[in-house]
């Protein structure tokens, strides 16, 4: 990914950093699209998910840039409010309701894009 932040650790510089996400965990969220925010530098899915108590919680799922997503076939209208989806994410470290998008299933089957990378060339 080009856009966004890159971590500087010592002298090194990476294209970006998603170090806030726990790359060792994959969580599947089932919920309803609240918003598909096609914004720079990154696109976000705002997803309403019911917790164990039956209360809706809003999760923010970060994707890559609109330019990158467009080359994968995504468009601003790919997801619409009210769509029922299942998303696989790397969650944020800690308890905040957020994560990094990996893959998903939408109302019409698998969402665009390919399977998540088994190893992260970011």
């Amino acid at each position, binding site marked *: 990914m080009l856009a966004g932040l*890159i971590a500087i650790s010592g002298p090194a510089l990476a294209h970006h950093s998603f170090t806030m996400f726990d790359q060792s965990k994959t969580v599947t969220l089932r919920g309803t699209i609240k918003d598909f925010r096609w914004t720079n530098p990154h696109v976000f899915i705002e997803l309403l998910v019911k917790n164990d108590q039956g209360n809706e919680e809003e999760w923010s799922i970060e994707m890559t840039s609109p*330019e990158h997503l467009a080359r994968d076939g995504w468009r601003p209208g790919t997801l619409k409010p009210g769509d029922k989806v299942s998303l696989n994410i790397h969650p944020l470290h800690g308890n905040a309701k957020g994560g990094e998008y990996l893959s998903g299933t939408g109302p019409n089957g698998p969402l665009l894009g390919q399977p998540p990378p088994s190893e*992260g060339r970011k």
Partner: protein
Amino acid sequence: MNLRRYAPAAALVIVLLTDSIAALGASSEPILPDWSGQWQQVGATPSPDGGFYESLDQVLKEMQWSPPNKPAIQAKIDKIVMAERKEMAAVRRGANPGGAVRACTFGYPALMLDSPLMFEVLPTPRETALIFSSREIRHVYTDGRAHPGKDDLWRTRWGDSIGHWEGQTLVIDTIAIDPAVDFLHLGGTPVVAFGGIEEMQLITYLSPETHFIERLRMIDTNHLQDEMTVIDPVNFTKPWHLTRTYERVQAIHRMVYEDCEGEERNPIVNGHFTLAPPPSPAKR
């Protein structure tokens, strides 16, 4: 018909035609290839999370990462790699990543060697422009000029490029890359090529004396190929040859640009990156 009435006009037409034919015959302009469309590096198609569908082995193989470093340079790199590996391991365990900056441009040679961007190529008789979705542009002058002289040249992130056509192959000669800021490797600040697990594997140093020669051509209707030779008389024991292939972008047929100058989505709070989703459209 009064032929004499039309004689001046006829003479003018003949003169113009003669000039045009002469100009055509004398023209040394190349017949330029049609490289229209959008291109992206093979193997660098980003996934929806911004990563790439490649393993480390694939990346190393595809990158042809074997810079012919002189021993002193290699020792320097090895030391950095080891230190960096420890730091990144700590970051993955949740340690403070140590700060952040925006990466909005790539510079050369990263644009050609390791770019997740799409780009267009616009050949014209006197210049070919390579326009990348980071809004970076490489200008390759093919009008026969030489590189600027020593007193008229300074290093930049994109260097100075001149070129010529050999049939349908564009031969590009690039010098004057700024070693202080480029990410892949140049000069004073060694910087890694990638994030992810392989980030420490792909660094090298290039000196300010580095000279690049590229041969850019279409190898079939859907692929461009760049054969690059990196000549660094200071840091390398021999020239370094790399090849990159670019494929047509299929899912979109117009140029759209990255825009990473906008809102912050990943502010650092208490030493950690966090999420700051954009406000809903109604609130913007």
